[in-house]
């Protein structure tokens, strides 16, 4: 089994087509929509957690790519700037998925992009702008 969080960028011409449902119908993949937005240019951006057998997973990704959907791992779109971070840990208890955590010994903050659902609360509250989400490329 494989679980990945990915960012999908849908071109304009797919806006009115059923796409994600085929991940279930054709490839037996589970998905959990973490975020979905339409940009001003009518491109769709969706953050998805996909779970399934490795072979099905690969087929599902190929299906999306063949449709012209651009796929990126979520970790490429969520940026924790360690230079800007002061490790105050203010963000830690606001993070709903514990993607941001504080080490109990060193008091240093760590970010695990695999746990992030891009809710964006850390982006709003970080006083040092150490968190950034770039979902639209």
């Amino acid at each position, binding site marked *: 089994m494989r679980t990945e969080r990915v960012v999908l960028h849908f071109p304009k011409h797919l806006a009115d087509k059923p796409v994600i449902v085929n991940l279930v119908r054709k490839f037996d993949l589970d998905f959990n929509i973490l975020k979905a937005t339409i940009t001003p240019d009518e491109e769709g951006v969706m953050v998805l957690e996909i779970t399934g057998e490795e072979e099905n997973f690969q087929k599902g990704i190929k299906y999306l790519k063949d449709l012209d959907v651009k796929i990126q791992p979520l970790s490429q779109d969520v940026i924790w700037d360690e230079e800007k971070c*002061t490790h*105050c*840990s203010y963000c830690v*208890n*606001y993070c709903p998925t514990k993607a941001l955590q504080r080490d109990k010994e060193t008091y*240093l903050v760590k970010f695990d992009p695999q746990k992030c659902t891009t809710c964006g609360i850390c982006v709003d509250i970080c*006083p040092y*702008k150490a968190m950034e989400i770039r979902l639209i490329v």
Partner: protein
Amino acid sequence: MAKTIEEINEKIRQGKAVVVTAEEMIDIVREKGVEKAAREVDVVTTGTFGMMCSSGIYFNIGHTKPRIKLGGGKVYLNNVPAYAGYAAVDIFLGATALPEDDPRNRYYPGKFVYGGAHVIEELVSGKDILLTAITYGTDCYPRKTLSAYINIKDLNEAVLFNVRNAYQNYNVAVNLSNKTIYTYLGMLRPNLGNANYSSAGQLSPLLNDPFYKTIGIGTRIFLGGGIGYIVWHGTQHDPSVIRGENGVPRRGAGTIAVIGDLKQMSPKWLKGASIIGYGVSLSVGIGVPIPVLDEEIAFYTSVKDEEIYAPVVDYSKAYPEREPEVIAEVNYKELRSGEIEILGKKVPTNSLSSYAKAREIANILKEWIKEGKFLLTKPSAPIPGPESGIKFKPFSGRELKEEVGSK
């Protein structure tokens, strides 16, 4: 046997001084006792890093050709208004200043993306800063406008001057209302959703010298990555608050005013901060060495997080209305665990000051002293303690109230 600062400095010069951080002192006193610790340890280093609004810088840009008198005119640094009411070319910039076109909280909660503190951080980083000015001309200062990039390396004096820093203890903020509020202690979720605090606790300078017995006017300190000095007690200095049996204040108490050469400092220890829904502030790193002159000081410097109690205050009503209610008292060990219990509810805690950075500062100062690069100073005057009778007074101005319906 009591030691003097001169004796400790002599040991520092010879590379023989025993210097430990305030965290390390806790274990030393526990293992060896106060008496032995006082004999063996010469200096305890402390540190704190967090938002300290009452910060500012002043600098002198030198005289333009032809000359301009900025005093009496308007001056902006990267569009952030600065104060030039001193003289011709001396400028003061406060950390909380905002560009005039910043929407502030009009689109609530405001983002406050850029202000005085960010200009300070950029200036310290060595970036060019746009200075724009408009003023009036005189016979000796005929020029009326100026638009130029300035750089810290070309300035004459560039000085950080903070009127109130390193608070001795502070409130823990909670929200008892049923809507989210945005405060200088961060975003507070409704119905006791979280509790926010800002102190380095056992590492914090004034909590390791609760009666200001070694810290005074003239004390040399780590300031923003360089060397600075304590120049006065800070504004809102309130030494007469209730204290625990260990002498540690249980409310926000003492503060210090500090000064230092901005050119020595680093953006690592002076950082612009944007507080959503509140404003802009500057995060400052401060470290203060405490000479272990006797057993009493050894005892004070061994204070632990679990022995420091902070008041929990409702920032939805009690704080803004200036009501004196304290909901509960919690200690820093509980706060730092990530969860406290208030009114029977488990509440997650968030820190706005960086304990990791406080620890780093205490260690840097320790190394400076061990290497003989940093000698201790004997204060030229004390900062006022409880015996001074100083109490922080609420506003007592006579407000002018408009008469309603008089006509």
